[in-house]
């Protein structure tokens, strides 16, 4: 007898799932490299729930959210389209009212949700996982599940509403001011804003200044990533520095090394990635001034605002300006939601699951605490109160074996029913008019311009031209390899990557749209970003010289 079968609605079942939809797309932004089974369970269940919740609350006229499946560690998604014209019209009427809170009081809406989530996190953190009883730990785990579910509701409701406004702004810029989203002036319009992620960066930069002042710069610069913590502990100044650094971590370090996974430590557990960021700031030298850099971008934005508004007919300026402000909030939201929603919740999930994992190890149910990430929540529940009564190692052994296999071969970009090709599948995505699909996941297709004789063609995420050494980075744990002046080449980026943007000269990503992380952060740091080149990580090798011309959407490999 088989130990387990495909779980319907969780794991991909070709027979049933192709009957539901002929095309399932890999979420390359979040599920490469492959997820652990527990994280996949959380994502498939609650991202699906959140997207349908958001689409329903807003009554999006054309789409009802997405469905998700887990397949070999990859998250695969398909869209739930509104089928009849009549239903579309009904939803349109509702949507017109449902979108108003975004227009009328965006900050109030978002601020309220942030407060709600921070309240939930505080409650979860109040439990001392080392001293708690098993029952308390299991309760905490259940509350974490609820928190994750609520996080996705807020996440997708906000994201659908926010990006709808952003797309309208793009359209209106084109119609009224003749400015298109590939134009540098458009990108200047939406950058130069403060947000939580930048505030954290700023703190890291300040710590780099302090390290220099207190004679710790050498220690940091000359240590490998793994040695930094130990070397700092050798001096009194280093210990004082770390004390303050850890209290900063306890405030703002509730984020994961890898955004969409729980099997790597959070900054609170292991501050090494954050310290590497400090080290990188030191390496930039004493003249580097983060504030000055940011100020320049803000001034450029104000200039761009003036230019664009002057092109808009006066009687249209009232609402146009309001729309512009709303679109500008999309960039802030894109960055901040990662901090307050995904990263923080995932840090809570890891904390809670590891609390139980440690008990399971003590009582022999598991061999290692992190093995709990190979269990499903129902299995955790089973052994939660009396872990001494259960042996769950056989489940872990089998799933871990599979997981190691998944790591060896990349997941296909889409699972397609026979007779259905990728172009047809893209057609469905575009037809959905789903704001998230269009702005984050799919983006616009690059224009191939043979006359440029470029090696790769993409779309402009952030304008500019740069030349430098390519550095291909496939996952977050390779970020420390980046050197000053490199051109970053990646499948995509996430907030954990933000600090390296101050070191690099340009970015090439395989996938992305104008509201993807790489585009937003590239604009904030004023460096060129070319997106949707599809095969950047495959074609470019670390060490090659490359030229990035984001204005043209072209990448040139200079030494082939």
């Amino acid at each position, binding site marked *: 007898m088989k130990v387990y079968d495909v779980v319907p609605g969780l794991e991909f079942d070709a027979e049933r799932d192709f009957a539901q939809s002929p095309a399932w797309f890999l979420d390359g932004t979040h599920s490469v490299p492959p997820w652990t089974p527990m994280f996949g369970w959380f994502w498939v269940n609650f991202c699906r729930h959140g997207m349908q919740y958001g689409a329903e609350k807003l009554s*999006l006229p054309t789409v009802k959210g997405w469905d998700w499946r887990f397949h070999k560690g990859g998250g695969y998604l398909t869209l739930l389209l509104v089928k009849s014209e009549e239903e579309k019209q009904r939803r349109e009427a509702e949507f017109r*009212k449902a979108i108003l809170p975004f227009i009328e009081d965006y900050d109030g809406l978002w601020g309220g949700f942030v407060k709600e989530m921070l309240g939930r996190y505080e409650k979860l953190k109040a439990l001392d996982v080392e001293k708690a009883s098993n029952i308390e730990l299991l309760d905490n785990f259940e509350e974490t599940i609820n928190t994750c579910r609520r996080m996705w509701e807020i996440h997708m409701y906000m994201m659908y509403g926010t990006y709808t406004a952003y797309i*309208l702004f793009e359209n209106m810029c084109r119609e009224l001011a003749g400015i298109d989203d590939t134009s540098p002036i458009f990108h200047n319009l939406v950058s130069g804003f403060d947000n939580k992620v930048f505030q954290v960066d700023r703190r890291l930069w300040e710590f780099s200044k302090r390290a220099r002042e207190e004679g710790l710069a050498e220690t940091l610069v000359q240590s490998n990533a793994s040695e930094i913590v130990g070397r700092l502990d050798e001096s009194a100044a280093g210990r004082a520095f770390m004390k303050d650094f850890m209290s900063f971590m306890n405030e703002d370090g509730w984020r994961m090394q890898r955004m969409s996974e729980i099997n790597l430590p959070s900054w609170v557990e292991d501050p090494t990635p954050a310290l590497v960021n400090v080290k990188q700031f030191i390496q930039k030298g004493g003249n580097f001034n983060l504030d000055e850099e940011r100020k320049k971008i803000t001034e450029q934005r104000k200039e761009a605002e003036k230019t664009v508004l002057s092109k808009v*007919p006066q009687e249209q300026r009232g609402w146009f300006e309001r729309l512009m402000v709303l679109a500008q909030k999309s960039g802030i939201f894109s960055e901040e939601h990662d901090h307050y929603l995904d990263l923080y919740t995932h840090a809570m999930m890891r904390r809670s699951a590891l609390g139980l994992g440690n008990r399971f190890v003590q009582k022999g149910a598991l061999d290692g605490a992190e093995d709990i990430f190979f269990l499903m929540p129902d299995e955790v529940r089973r052994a939660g109160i009396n872990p001494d009564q259960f042996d769950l190692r056989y489940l872990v052994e089998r799933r871990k074996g599979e997981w190691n296999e998944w790591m060896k071969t990349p997941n296909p970009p889409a699972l397609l029913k026979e007779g259905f090709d990728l172009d047809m599948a893209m057609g469905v995505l575009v037809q959905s008019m789903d704001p998230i699909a269009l702005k984050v996941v799919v983006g616009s297709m690059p224009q191939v311009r043979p006359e440029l004789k470029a090696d790769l063609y993409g779309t402009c995420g952030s304008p500019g031209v740069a030349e430098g050494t390519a550095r291909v980075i496939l996952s977050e744990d390779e970020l420390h390899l980046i050197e000053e002046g490199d051109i970053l080449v990646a499948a995509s980026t996430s907030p954990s990557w933000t600090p390296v943007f101050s070191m690099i000269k340009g970015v090439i990503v395989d996938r992305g749209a104008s509201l993807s992380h790489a585009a937003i952060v590239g604009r904030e740091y004023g460096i060129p970003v070319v997106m949707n080149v599809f095969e950047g990580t495959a074609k470019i090798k670390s060490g090659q010289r490359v030229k990035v011309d984001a204005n043209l959407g072209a990448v040139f490999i200079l030494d082939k």
Partner: protein
Amino acid sequence: MSKKWLYWFEELNSGHNDLVGKKCANLGEMTGLGMRIPPGFAISVEGYERFMAETGAGELIRQYVRDNVNELKNVRKQVEASRTIRQIIESQEMPPDMRDELYRYYEELKQRAGEDEIAVAVRSSGAVSMPGQMETYLNVRRKESVVRKVIEVWGSAFTTRAIAFRLEKGMPLDKAPIGVAVLKMVDAKSAGVVLTVLPTVGDTSKVVVEGNWGLGESVVSGEITPDQYIVDKESGCVECTVNKKTKMIVYKDSGTAMTDVPGDIQAKPCVDEKELKEIVRIAKEVESYFNCPQDMEWVLDCSGCCPENLYWVQARPAKYSKTKEKEAEYLAELMTRMFKS
């Protein structure tokens, strides 16, 4: 040689606001745009100040204000001040050299109009916004009356509200930056307003024309329900509401009066198709020149035919409702439309 204080409209443009007041500067600008406006001239603020100085009215007013400075905080006293000051101004005669110059302009105006006997409108033209209605005199005939009405317009700068306003803002009481427009009356068949925006909803894709028989004052004052034509700027489609118009304003021998509209034309549209088209055409042109929705006043002369009988007496930026809620609803509507393929 004293300073120039009389100007033909073609000598003026919107930059002359401080010189001749808003209305005159605006009429000058319209003339420059090639719009047909009734022939006329402007009396500058300088003219007012010279009158006040030469007749001694200015000094009398200053004396009165000095004597009553403490009591003027009292509203009842302000009412009395208004009456007293207007009395001071209106009891003056126009200094002879000023009068003769005014006569000369009036004579030339008759020549320009090509008529021996004309009626004019004498309108106030304030250089700054001041609460309280300043006077306008319609259908003024003969040069002596014109001079008298000009003095009365000057006096009308001292309404009770205007006095209270100036006291509150700490502005000198005896000064009033006021110009006067003297322009030929159009023998109005019908008249009204045109807005290049639907003011209630802020829809800038439409032009709305409202009109009534007779002089435009009946439409502007809102005393009657005028005919209404809503025209789509792009397609030219007209949505027309012809109302039963029972009252209109017409000239009498001197001045104007409200009278009954003859029964046979009460339910008839007060502009024909050709006239409507011309009104809309010009309104759109002016709007695109100023790059801003316009609020304009038009008059159709009894004699002549379209387009020669169409005159303009006002063009200014339209005030229209663009409240926060309206903007929000409009944005919501735009976002909804986005989902339609």
